[in-house]
């Protein structure tokens, strides 16, 4: 079964993951790590197909924070993909990035905020911006597909050139309602 998730009512431009991919390429991102998420599935697939991007699947999100630090030590730019439910896992590891002023870019697909059907997703979704901010991470929002390139580009500049830790929260509205069928998870 194709792992690209099926979403309905996504009339808002399904190509925003392609715009993210292109922007990351423009910034020379060479490593991409992820905990799988349906909203990121297209970007993950594009990255797997790109021999210039080393993809790493993680067992938990904070591994990707440490991986990003190691990549930078070795002269490469990294990005971490996750869902909002994984943000809390990263809190202590983010002190590594702050203590060493490591550039850090993470792209977070939001759950628990827009037409959420699963109450268990809501507490971490609601706490996501604060969980980043308490560790000094700058939080940017991506709400509209047409803003994708501009927002990702701004975040990447702030991270890789400004030596900041930056999270882009991708609105659940952009991802669309989850279509609860056998093909999705």
């Amino acid at each position: 079964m194709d792992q690209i998730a099926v979403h309905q009512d996504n009339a808002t431009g399904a190509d925003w993951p392609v715009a993210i991919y292109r922007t990351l390429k423009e910034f020379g991102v060479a490593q991409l790590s992820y905990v799988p998420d349906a909203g990121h599935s297209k970007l993950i697939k594009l990255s797997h197909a790109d021999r210039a991007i080393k993809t790493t699947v993680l067992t938990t999100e904070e591994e990707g924070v440490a991986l990003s630090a190691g990549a930078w030590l070795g002269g490469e730019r990294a990005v971490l993909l996750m869902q909002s439910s994984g943000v809390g896992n990263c809190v202590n590891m983010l002190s590594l990035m702050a203590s060493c002023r490591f550039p850090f870019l993470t792209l977070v697909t939001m759950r628990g905020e827009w037409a959420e059907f699963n109450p268990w997703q809501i507490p971490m979704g609601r706490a996501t911006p604060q969980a980043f901010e308490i560790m000094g991470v700058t939080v940017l929002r991506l709400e509209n597909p047409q803003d994708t390139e501009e927002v990702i580009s701004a975040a990447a500049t702030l991270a890789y050139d400004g030596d900041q830790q930056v999270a882009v929260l991708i609105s659940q509205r952009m991802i669309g309602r989850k279509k609860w069928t056998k093909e999705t998870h």
Partner: protein
Amino acid sequence: MSEPIGTLDRRAAVKALLADRGDLLVISGLGSSSYDLFAAGEHPGNFYLWGAMGGAAMVGLGLALAQPKRPVLVITGDGEQLMGIGSLLTIAAKQPGNLSIAVLDNGQFGETGMQPSHSGLGAKLEVIASGAGIGSVSDIADMAGVEAFRARLRDVNGGPRLARIRIAAGELERALPPRDGTYLKNRFRGHLGIAVA
């Protein structure tokens, strides 16, 4: 009190690992592992962690992927590796040939009052690593084993590898490396010829 895991002197073991280090790049886990690395000789190709517990192996993976022609060694303790135990699966999934992990195992949380760790209570890190898919694992109890492991570190195609090195329990005099992370980061990148922007 659990049975002692090993008898090796940790400082002697780490010093032996780093003898004739050549182009080896080294990440050390927080606590005694960082003190051991510093005591073995200050070097710009050392990156000492002072926090980020559970993250040493993953910092090593990111570095190993970015510098595939350089051998990368992570030196850490049993407690630090246990906190990031999932990273062994992540490393196995990537199969970085140039990455080696040396776990200094005394079966105890040395920094916090010598409480027995899961290793001290029976967990076998080399078996866990093997089960995770790391093909080259060793259980080292003497200096001959340390020397043999050191000889393999240079082979950037033979990893990933993990060695459990059985060290004696007990605290040594602290040897404190620099704590300024930004300095350590820029020094390390400078060593690799990466310009500071």
